[in-house]
């Protein structure tokens, strides 16, 4: 596995993780803090702490990764800027990891769940959502990432007769979700946030698959692209 640094600022959580190799095995060390509006203060010190703990400098990294969205626009750009700056400065490639996939993996690792609907509150009465089936060797996406009103959330057509688990802040909009969907959910973990720890593992796979690119090519994925309205002249 590569040596890589992952950052995330996509939600109210701020996190960083470092994948290193110690005593012949891959290991991820990480920092995580729930720190609304404090990402600009927390992120760089986390990076510095992790590198110091591992006793390495950025020149030892094979790549840098960040939570590329969906999520808070400003948060995505803080992580993108920091990760791009680190990667560009160190002359290393960059990887973008889906925040929803990282969230699903986190639910899988903490609660051993298999079918996960990962959803983040997108504000303006919408959620960012994707569905995953977790296998021992990776995640399979069953519903593409989308931004939609919770009223329109449906289960993937090819996996309706299984127990689904909901994870992420999007589930605070439970009351607006269709009753059929509510019935299919065995549990929800609305307090769980995406974290750099899982992004490091996912990024390592992407790195092995040859997905690392020059830093400026790895842009945030906002999903919501209608953000301005042209005035009538």
């Amino acid at each position, binding site marked *: 596995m590569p040596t890589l640094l992952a950052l995330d600022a996509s939600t109210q959580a701020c996190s960083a993780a470092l994948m290193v190799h110690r005593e012949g095995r891959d290991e991820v060390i990480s920092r995580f803090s729930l720190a609304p509006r404090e990402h*600009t203060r927390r*992120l760089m010190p986390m990076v510095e702490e992790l590198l110091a703990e591992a006793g390495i400098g*950025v020149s030892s990294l094979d790549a840098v990764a960040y939570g590329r969205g969906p999520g808070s626009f400003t948060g995505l*750009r803080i992580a993108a800027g*920091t990760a791009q700056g680190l990667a560009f*400065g160190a002359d290393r490639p960059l990887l973008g990891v889906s925040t929803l996939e990282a969230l699903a993996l986190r639910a899988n690792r903490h609660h051993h769940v298999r079918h996960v609907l990962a959803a983040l509150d997108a504000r303006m009465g919408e959620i960012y959502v994707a569905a995953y089936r977790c296998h021992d060797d990776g995640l399979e996406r069953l519903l593409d990432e989308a931004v939609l009103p919770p009223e329109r959330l449906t289960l993937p057509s090819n996996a309706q007769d299984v127990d689904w688990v909901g994870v992420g802040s999007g589930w605070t909009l439970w009351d607006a979700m269709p009753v059929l969907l509510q019935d299919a959910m065995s549990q929800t973990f609305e307090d769980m946030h995406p974290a750099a720890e899982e992004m490091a593992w996912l990024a390592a796979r992407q790195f092995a698959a040859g997905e690392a690119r020059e*830093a400026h090519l790895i842009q945030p994925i906002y999903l919501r692209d209608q*953000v301005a309205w042209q005035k009538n002249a």
Partner: protein
Amino acid sequence: MRVLGIETSCDETGVAVYDTQAGLLADTLYSQVDMHAAYGGVVPELASRDHTRKLLPLIQTTLDDAGLGRNDLDGIAYTAGPGLVGALMVGAATAHGMAHALGIPVLGVHHMEGHLLAPMLEETAPAFPFVALLVSGGHTQLVEVKGLGHYRLLGESVDDAAGEAFDKTAKMLGLSYPGGPAVARLAEQGDTARFRFPRPMTDRPGLDFSFSGLKTHTLTTANALREAGELDDTGRADIARAFEDAVVDTLVIKCRRALEQTGLTRLVVAGGVSANVRLRERLDTEIARRGGQTFYPRGRFCTDNGAMIAYVGAQRLAAGERDTGTMHAVPRWPLADLAPPDAS
């Protein structure tokens, strides 16, 4: 010391390298103005997204232009404010990440201090102390400058900035965004004698400005002409001329007064409106007549740019000032809060 400067406070992505020995080594700018024109003004979210797309390629281009590698840099400066917070974050985060990777110091600097000191990039740079008129779409301020970080606010606009008044006048006259240069062009065809607009706050002592009443006067005049069926090309040009004359006169009167009040002889004019030709002509004549000197940045450094940020950053970084782990993005930040370089 070679410093990379990054400017992302509004709708221009600017990057430059300034060397404290060799001067400005490279300077590049990407303007989003065409993108925002369709919306009649800057859309903050679109501006921020575009900075994220453009910044790294622009840094690479700037380094290439300077014939430098990233390891040749000794420090990075970025605009920490004032400005659009989301846009500022892009520069702040990128600067911090890159500086950490390169093991060099990083510092967030004040955008208006950049404008204030932009004339220092010219061959005939002003010596301290001087009076500076900062005049742009967001600011109209008179500042006494005794040295780096020694700024005293002498007066400022109590409402609209002068550049804002230009933009709003352009809108009333059906000119395209951004309006300042368009109003100035139209004014060239205007008759100075047809209308005389008020020179706000010049009939009383003090160095504050107000442009909102002038804006209303312009609107009233335009509406009266429209009703009379006279808001044709001539009418619009005459209004533009009367408006521009009033703004220029007001600025000239206050600049003269500021020099008298401080006993200084050098006047620096910076910010977007400082590119206005008639303002420069009038100030040059007026200040020279009093035995003073005027200084302006070159045209491309009147508006937002990375060079002024690299310059200010280089002065402060060389004096030992630097950020610790926190990235700074400060949407509101009074210039008078600045202090000389802090090496602690």
